[in-house]
C-alpha cells in the first residue's frame, strides 16, 4: 500500500480541488482528509458516514470552587495563562500539562479526559473516506491527524485498496508534520505567486527533512508566467518531478459551486489534465 500526501505550505493553492479531482480518476483509493482544522473535502465528496468516533486527547482539568482556597499557586505556576482571576480553567488556553493539579495544596483540581473532536469513516462515490472535525478552538490537531492517517491505512488494508490519498493541511507545523509521517510521497501544489513560492520552499525543506520523495503540480498557470518558470526551475534543481500544470480558470470555482470534482464537471477539458497528472504520479510510484 502507498500513501500520497497533498500539501502546499500556503493555504488556498487548490489542494482540495486537486485531491477531489485525483479521487475521480485512476485506481480505487481510500481518501483521507487531514486538514482537520478546516476540512473541506467532504463538501465535494458528500460522504455517507458509516462510523463516528470521539477523539480524546490529553486531560481537561477542573477546579472545584468548594475546595479551592484561592491560594493562587496554580495561576502562578501555569505557563499558559490558562487560569482565570476567579480560579477557573480557561479551556482554550489549557494545554493539559497537569501543573495546576500537581501544585494545588487543597486537592481542588480534578482531571477528565478531554474530548477534542470526532473522526469518521464514510462511504463516498469514489471509495471510502476517513475525515475528522476538530472541536472549535481545540488543540492537538497533530494527534487527530495521526488518528485519521492510521485509520485510513487500516481501512485500506481491510478493503484491499493499494492507495491512500491524503488532503494535507496548510503550513509547516504540527498538523503537516503529522500528515507526512509514514507517507510514501508528497505532492506539492504550487501557485505562481511570490508568497506561495516562498511557502513551497518552506514545505519542501520539510519534505527533505523527512527524506520524502516529492512531486509538484503548478496550479493557476497563466497568472504569472515568470514565476511559473521559477517554479519549474525550482523543481528541476530540487529533484521534484513536475506531475503537471493546471490553468488559472474559473471552471474550478464553478465545479466547487456544483459540489462536483473538476473531473466530473469538465471531463473533456480539465478532467483530462487531471488524468494526465495521475498518469505521471503512477509512473513515479
Amino acid at each position: 500500500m502507498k500513501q500520497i500526501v497533498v500539501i502546499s505550505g500556503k493555504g488556498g493553492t487548490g489542494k482540495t480541488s486537486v485531491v477531489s479531482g485525483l479521487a475521480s480518476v485512476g485506481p480505487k483509493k481510500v481518501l483521507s482528509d487531514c486538514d482537520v482544522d478546516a476540512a473541506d473535502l467532504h463538501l465535494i465528496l458528500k460522504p455517507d458516514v458509516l462510523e463516528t468516533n470521539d477523539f480524546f486527547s490529553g486531560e481537561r482539568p477542573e477546579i472545584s470552587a468548594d475546595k479551592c482556597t484561592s491560594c493562587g499557586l496554580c495561576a502562578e505556576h501555569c505557563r499558559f495563562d490558562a487560569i482565570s482571576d476567579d480560579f477557573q480553567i480557561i479551556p482554550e488556553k489549557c494545554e493539559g500539562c497537569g501543573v495546576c493539579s500537581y501544585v494545588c495544596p487543597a486537592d481542588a483540581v480534578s482531571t477528565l479526559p478531554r474530548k477534542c473532536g470526532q473522526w469518521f469513516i464514510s462511504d463516498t462515490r469514489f471509495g471510502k473516506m476517513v475525515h475528522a472535525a476538530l472541536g472549535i478552538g481545540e488543540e492537538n490537531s497533530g494527534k487527530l491527524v495521526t488518528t485519521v492517517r492510521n485509520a485510513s491505512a487500516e481501512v485500506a488494508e481491510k478493503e484491499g485498496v493499494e492507495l491512500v490519498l491524503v488532503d494535507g493541511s496548510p503550513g509547516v507545523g504540527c498538523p503537516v508534520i503529522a500528515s507526512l509521517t509514514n507517507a510514501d510521497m508528497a505532492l506539492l501544489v504550487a501557485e505562481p505567486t511570490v508568497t506561495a513560492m516562498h511557502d513551497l520552499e518552506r514545505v519542501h525543506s520539510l519534505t527533505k527533512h523527512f527524506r520524502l520523495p516529492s512531486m509538484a503540480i503548478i496550479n493557476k498557470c497563466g497568472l504569472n508566467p515568470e514565476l511559473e518558470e521559477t517554479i519549474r526551475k525550482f523543481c528541476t534543481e530540487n529533484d521534484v518531478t513536475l506531475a503537471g500544470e493546471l490553468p488559472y480558470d474559473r471552471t474550478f470555482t464553478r465545479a466547487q459551486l456544483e459540489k462536483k470534482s473538476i473531473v466530473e464537471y469538465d471531463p473533456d477539458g480539465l478532467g483530462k489534465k487531471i488524468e494526465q497528472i495521475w498518469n505521471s504520479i503512477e509512473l513515479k510510484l
Partner: protein
Amino acid sequence: MRIAIASGKGGTGKTTVAVNLAAYLDSQDIDTGFIDCDVEEPNAHFFLKPELGPAKEETLPVPEIITDKCLGESCKKCIEQCRFKSLIWMVSEVLVFAELCHGCGLCELACPADAITEGKRVVGTTSTGKAGDINFATALLKIGEAMSPPLIKAVKKADSKSEVVITDCPPGTSCPVIEAIEGSDFVVLVTEPTPFGLHDLDLAVQLLKILKYKFGVVINRSGMGDNSVEEYLNKNNIPLLGSLPHSRDAASTYSSGDLLWDKIPGFKQEYEKIWNSIIKLTSGAA
C-alpha cells in the same frame, strides 16, 4: 487598538487584506504597526517590504537532566508526570525528547532531587523593523518544529506602542489562531464566496463567539462564486465590513508581491469603508 485578521480557510486573502489595510492606514497618517503571526508561512514582508533588523532566536524552556543528581530508576517521577511523553527511561538514564516538550515545567517541580534545570530549545526567530512608517514585526518557525504558539506569543510582544496594530493570523481554528488573536480589540474574518469559504468561515465565527470577540467579515474575490456568504451574514447578523471584487488584475498584481489598495480601481474606497466599519463597531473600545 489591535486588529487581528483571520479566517478558517487558508488562501482566502488574510495577508492581502492585512497588508493593504495597514498600507491604507499608513497613507492616512495613522501610526500603524504590523505583526505577522502566521509564523509557519509568514508572507506579509513580500508586500510591505520592510527593512528588518537582525533575526533574534526565540526559545522554549525544556528540561535538562543533571545525571549526577538524578535518583534514577527508583524514582522516575518526572517521566510519570510528563503528559507529553517527552521524557523516557532509556537503559540507565532519563532521556529528553525536547521536540515533544511543551515547556510546562512540571518535571522540574516533580523532581525530588533538584536534578532538572531549564535548558532551551530554539523554536524559530523573530525580527522587527520598519516598512516606511509602519512598525513591522515578523517571525519564522524553524523547519521541523511543530509548536508555533510560543513563537506567536513572542512576536506579538514586538509592538505595543503603535496606535493601530494589525496582526496577520495563521489559518484554522486551533491553538495557533487563538494565540494570535489573543488581546485583539476587533477581528476581521476574510472569506471568499465559495462553499469552502463559507464552511470555514462558519467555523471561525463559532470560535470567535466562544472567545467573545467583536468581529466583522470581508469578502475577498467577491463575484467569483455565489451569494451564500452574504446570505449567511444576513441570517446571523454579522457585519459585512466590505467586499473586494474578484479580478484577474488583482490576482496577478498580488502574484508579483504588489499592494492592491492604490492600484486596483475601487479598492481604495473599499479599504476606507472597511476601516470606517471597524471604527464604528469598536467605538467605545480604546
